[in-house]
């Protein structure tokens, strides 16, 4: 691995090593560009992963202090845990389920498609599906997405059998084991899925794509990557020309260092990325770096989510096998006659007994709760994931008084459901229950959203610099050598799981950065 000097201002500093940052770093390194990759979390290996929900949660999760506000139920049940995302090399690609879906064409221009939705800050993306298609193709090949590039789908597990039968009886057409970045056959030096059932706890076979053991070692092999784990970015610094020139970060021992930079790419997820920009306020950027629009931290989206679990009189054992290899896509269309705009996907999901206790109905007790738990092995489950409405008031802001271990304000995450989110969730609960009723469910459980895994929109992409933070390349409108490279650039959320789009955008962004450097524009 390369080691670059802290004063070497020819390097690109990438902050965060997950789907966006890890991919971007590798793509830049492959093009001969020197990269310093700052990662706040530790560098675990596959061998360190634990098939145990609570222990893995403690090992991988981002547990630094955060606060919550708003009417979302997470603020009541898990006030210090707005998101279930990771602090580790590989970021949340250690934890993600692997679902890799392209956005639909209309989902890039929802303001046009849906019209003016009261209370929503909808905006069309500055790019369309056609712009992203070649990059989606590269991302699918890189990640080894099933049902693309001639890769067979994964075999369905018990949970999928229940979903498939219910869906077919209900008349749904698009039902299969998903497009998953999990090897169904050995590929790219990694083995095939062995149906462990612990996708969320770090994949112990390496069959699931994670930047931890794909992009990052490939980048290291070029000699162009200086990976610095346990190095948390605190502020991005700039010069008199309003260009960024370095990143101040805290090392494991708490000591602070500054890495000089030719360009800085922020990929710390939708909480830490805006927080970093806001914490980098200066005389020249009094409202935060790259925040002349006032949109940094705004328009926070987390997808309309929820789960339906159902109990049956015969065993299911849903926890065996790939967690999310099962999808019904029929409801992902935009059909306002259902009473809401946008659509949602229905995807198999299971959690183990320990997390079922914590998440089935947080705070519940008594026989209604324990009746469900008693039937755990007779239970099937699905996750409902759909497009939620961006709202300016849903926001990541700096807490006025609470500070983290480095003395910087912690992020507060405010969220209220939009009426469209509630209408969609209600529809999804009803349809999910209908799927299970069609195969004889004894009882359905409408489970509220977990702490967020899809965190989007807080540095959104816009054609108009007054309406968003970055342009179509993820380049800050205000600072040309500052980039955002994670899901916070999403203008709107679409119905699909976001990782494939984050990766496609990162590959595209790397190409742009390299070209701009060649043109001496950066």
């Amino acid at each position, binding site marked *: 691995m390369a080691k670059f000097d802290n004063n070497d201002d020819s390097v690109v500093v990438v902050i965060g090593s997950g789907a966006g940052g890890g991919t971007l770093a590798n793509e830049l390194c492959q093009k001969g560009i020197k990269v310093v990759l700052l990662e706040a979390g530790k560098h675990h290996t596959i061998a360190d*992963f634990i*098939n*145990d*929900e*609570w*222990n893995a*949660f*403690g090992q991988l999760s981002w*547990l630094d202090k955060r606060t919550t506000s708003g009417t979302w139920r997470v603020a*009541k049940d*898990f*006030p*210090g*845990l707005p998101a279930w995302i990771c602090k580790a090399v590989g970021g949340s690609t250690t934890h993600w389920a692997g679902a890799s879906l392209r956005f639909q064409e209309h989902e890039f221009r929802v303001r046009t498609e849906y019209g003016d939705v009261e209370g929503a800050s909808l905006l069309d993306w500055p790019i369309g599906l056609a712009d992203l298609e070649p990059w989606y193709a590269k991302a699918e090949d890189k990640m080894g997405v099933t049902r693309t590039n001639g890769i*067979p*789908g994964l*075999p*369905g*597990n*018990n949970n*999928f*059998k*229940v979903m*498939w*039968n219910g869906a077919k009886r209900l008349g749904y057409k698009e*039902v*299969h*084991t998903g497009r998953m970045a999990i090897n*169904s*056959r*050995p590929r790219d030096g990694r083995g*095939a*899925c*062995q*149906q*462990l*059932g*612990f996708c969320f706890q770090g994949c112990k076979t390496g069959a699931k794509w994670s930047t931890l053991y794909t992009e990052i070692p490939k980048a290291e092999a070029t000699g162009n990557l200086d990976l610095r784990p346990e190095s948390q970015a605190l502020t991005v610094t700039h010069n008199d020309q309003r260009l960024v020139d370095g990143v101040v970060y805290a090392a494991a021992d708490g000591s602070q260092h500054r890495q000089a930079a030719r360009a800085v790419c922020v990929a710390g997820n939708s909480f830490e990325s805006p927080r970093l920009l806001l914490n980098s306020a200066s005389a020249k950027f009094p409202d935060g770096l790259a925040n002349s629009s006032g949109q940094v931290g705004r328009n926070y989206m987390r997808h309309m989510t929820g789960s339906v679990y159902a109990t049956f009189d*015969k065993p*299911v*054992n849903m*926890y*065996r*096998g790939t967690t999310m290899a099962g999808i019904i896509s029929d409801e992902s269309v935009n059909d306002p006659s259902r009473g809401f705009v946008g659509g949602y996907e229905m995807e198999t999901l299971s959690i*183990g*007994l*320990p997390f079922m*206790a*914590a*998440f089935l109905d*947080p*705070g519940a*007790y*008594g026989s209604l*709760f*324990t009746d469900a*738990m*008693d039937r755990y*092995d007779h239970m099937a489950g699905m996750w409902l994931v759909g497009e939620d409405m961006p709202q300016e008031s849903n926001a990541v802001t700096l807490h006025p008084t609470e500070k983290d271990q480095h003395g910087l304000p912690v992020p507060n995450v405010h969220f209220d459901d939009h009426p469209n989110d509630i209408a969609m969730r209600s529809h999804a609960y009803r349809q999910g229950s209908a799927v299970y009723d069609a*195969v004889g469910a004894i009882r359905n459980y409408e489970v509220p959203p977990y702490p967020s895994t899809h965190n989007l929109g807080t540095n959104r992409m816009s054609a108009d610099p007054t309406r968003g933070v970055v342009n179509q390349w993820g380049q800050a409108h205000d600072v040309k050598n500052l980039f955002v490279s994670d899901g916070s650039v999403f203008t709107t959320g679409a119905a699909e799981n976001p990782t494939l789009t984050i990766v496609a955008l990162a590959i595209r962004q790397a190409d742009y950065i390299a070209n701009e450097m060649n043109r001496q524009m950066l």
Partner: protein
Amino acid sequence: MTLEAMNRRRFLHLTGGAAAGAAMIAAGVGLTAAPRGAWALSLESLDAHQGATLLKVARHVFPHDTLDDVYYAGVVQSLDGKAAADADVAAALADGVKALDTATSVPWLDLSDGYQLRILEGPGETLLHTVKGDAVVSLYNNPLVWRHFGYEGPSAQHGGYMNRGFDDLNWLPDPDEQASPPSA
């Protein structure tokens, strides 16, 4: 403190809400399977009456008729560990038990289940939430309890569930091969 206990403690501290209760600990539950009744609680901080009361509270909170008391004793042991480490917790638990016992002229443990529950949801509400916050982890994160519920847990050491029933459901037709291709 074990790594396990520390992680849970950290989570519980973070969540602090209805789901997990404020800052309650789920310490390692060093109990082994045993025939019904053939076990004894060794308590560090709580007295025997408090222990017996908390065990019954845990049963009311998460009632599983077929689950032996030994598993609920794990909750009591977890609470006892917390009480031993923190005098405030010990005092809160003692106050909670006293609130149950003084709610009527009959000691709480001698009351019918219906009376017990009504008191628990009234003057005993604080204690109810404390026990619930602990038990949601200390009861359900016990591998012996997993077995009772049919959850087989870790699979990596067995090569996953590939050859251990990931697709053995036989009361519904198998999906077509386009939807669910055969495994490699």
